């Protein structure tokens, strides 16, 4: 049963959100990648030592490495994960795989996300482009053995169609520009997997740069990527996607990421990085304080976005209600008093007792 989240005010801290809504053994999807990666929430998951997660990783840069270093990941369904170094350097993922710490299943971007699309729609499976069957993405199975790909015969054409299983992760974590306290979350820029990752999942934790009033959402519903009734927590977290980028707020922090990749080439360096940037800070605020203390405010300020605003969409209409300012109905061409008389005469009234 899919739960609805109808609390009027879901604002809480990242710590509270992760404590309440992420459990050991959960499946987790990072509901945007490359762009607006929810680092603040992921770091909180690591700090709380969540274990044995099954992670759906669409395409990441360093966030997956961090979850692995935190010992959070048991199973990994993955399409793409960035690496900088050549063959001589062991990446975090490689070291973890060699030690047998996690199981992996390789997908393509489309086949991975179609599992979530099917899950979001409540379907047991969905077709993918059948050519995948000619690749080892199809042939080699590990973590999802026997459940990776299937084949059905189209009842209309007889064609054999490759399908993937619909999947519903326990938790999606998402960072957006703005949300209201009910959880209506608005994201713009590269949408990648966010919609399907959120709608597929049982619980959606949203962090945002700003909690905005309902009016802002009501006037720009086209920007809402996940509706509030599917969201269980709203965390206001400025710079919550740093070092990735968020349009209207900040660019990616290339130097900071370089530091990560340089340090994580060794196990000791990786541990030191995690100690400094994840375990050594209590929350995102302390992370930012530490950034400023360590590198200086200037480097953070250099990332700040300059405005490039969208043209407002005019949601205007005549705005005509049932009764105009003279209490006349446009449709019936009569006054409210005349209407009530017509209702009395011809409306088939039933006598009732008020309250």
């Amino acid at each position, binding site marked *: 049963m899919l739960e609805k989240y109808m609390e009027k005010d879901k604002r809480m801290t990242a710590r509270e959100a992760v404590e309440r809504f992420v459990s050991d053994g959960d499946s987790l999807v990072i509901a945007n990648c490359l762009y607006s990666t929810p680092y603040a929430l992921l770091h909180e998951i690591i700090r709380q030592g969540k274990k044995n997660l099954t992670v759906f990783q669409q395409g990441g840069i360093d966030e997956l490495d961090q979850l692995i270093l935190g010992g959070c990941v048991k199973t990994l369904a993955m399409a793409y994960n960035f690496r900088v170094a050549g063959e001589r350097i062991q990446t975090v993922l490689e070291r973890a795989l060699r030690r047998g710490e996690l199981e992996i299943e390789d997908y393509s971007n489309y086949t991975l996300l179609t599992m979530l699309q099917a899950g979001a729609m409540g379907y047991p499976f969905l077709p993918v482009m059948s050519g995948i069957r000619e690749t*080892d993405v199809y042939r080699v199975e590990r973590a999802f053995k026997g459940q990776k790909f299937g084949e059905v015969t189209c009842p209309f054409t007889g064609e054999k169609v490759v399908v993937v299983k619909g999947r519903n992760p326990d938790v999606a974590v998402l960072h957006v520009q703005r949300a209201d306290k009910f959880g209506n979350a608005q994201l713009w820029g590269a949408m990648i997997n966010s919609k399907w990752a959120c709608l597929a999942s049982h619980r959606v934790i949203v962090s945002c740069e700003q909690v905005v009033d309902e009016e802002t959402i009501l006037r720009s519903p086209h920007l809402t990527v996940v509706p509030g009734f599917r969201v269980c927590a709203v965390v206001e977290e400025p710079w919550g996607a740093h070092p990735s980028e968020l349009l209207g707020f900040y660019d990616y922090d290339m130097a900071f990421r370089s*530091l990560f990749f340089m340090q994580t080439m060794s196990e000791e360096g990786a541990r030191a990085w995690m100690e400094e940037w994840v375990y050594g800070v209590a929350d995102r605020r302390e992370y930012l304080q530490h950034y400023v203390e360590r590198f*200086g405010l200037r480097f953070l300020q250099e990332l700040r976005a300059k405005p490039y605003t969208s043209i407002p969409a005019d949601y205007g209409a005549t705005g005509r209600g049932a009764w105009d300012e003279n209490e006349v109905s446009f449709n019936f061409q009569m006054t409210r008093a005349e209407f009530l008389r017509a209702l009395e005469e011809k409306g088939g009234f039933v006598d009732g007792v008020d309250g």
Partner: protein
Amino acid sequence: MASTVKYTESEIIVAHAAKEIKDGDIVVIGQGIPMAAGVLAKATHAPNCVILTEAGLVDIRPFRNPLHIADPTCTRGYTYSCDMIDVFATIVNRGLVDVTFLGVGQMDRYGNMNSTVFGDYDDFRMRMMGAGGAPEFFGYARKAVLTMRGGKFVERVDYVSSPGYLEGYGARERAGFPPGSGPKVVYSSRGVFRFDEESGEIYLYGVFPGHTVEEIRKEVPWDLRVADEVVELPPPTREEVELIREFAPEISAGRRLQLELSIPRIMEIISGKGR
């Protein structure tokens, strides 16, 4: 008037690869050299091509070479904001992609490509970035244009991430891929390879200035077929080189020099100079 032009290995690849895009093409592009080629094409002979990335960004106009396919240089003015499902299902699957531009990790003689793992799948030598969007782009675009810097030709790929001509001789079409689709050309830093239409086997089509057929043959572990008349490809024009350096100096520099040149700023930051 003949005049000389100085260029780097990456620049000549970008300049030639850009010519694979025709005006009005719909083009799917990955990060790095491929994106530089796309942007160069749009700035020169193909102003009406539509460049898109699997991040759901369609008709982008990057003002510098993006770091990745969803970065803020891709999102400053684009005409259609959709998502990854929309790109694959409603654009790629519908046969609308004319050209896909991808980098190569490992490739065999029939253009089958590996971007997942070197060596045994479980006891690997190295894990690459993964299949990403490549299997479907490779499978369903009208033509795939490949750039190879640091990649390798091998007798057998260790893992087929993306389908080329499979075992050759029509195997690709029998497997149900769109007729005529598939890898068409590979640009390495030494020369250009194309694929025989009947067998699907790769052959050396042309060499870049300063390189020889023999040198290229040595880098291919099978008896590489060579065109009857190997084309000597011209260097990039001065205009092309200047355009590339204008929006993609990192690409001009190549990976190693780019890293070397980036270090001072990284060291400046790490040392806390901004405090």
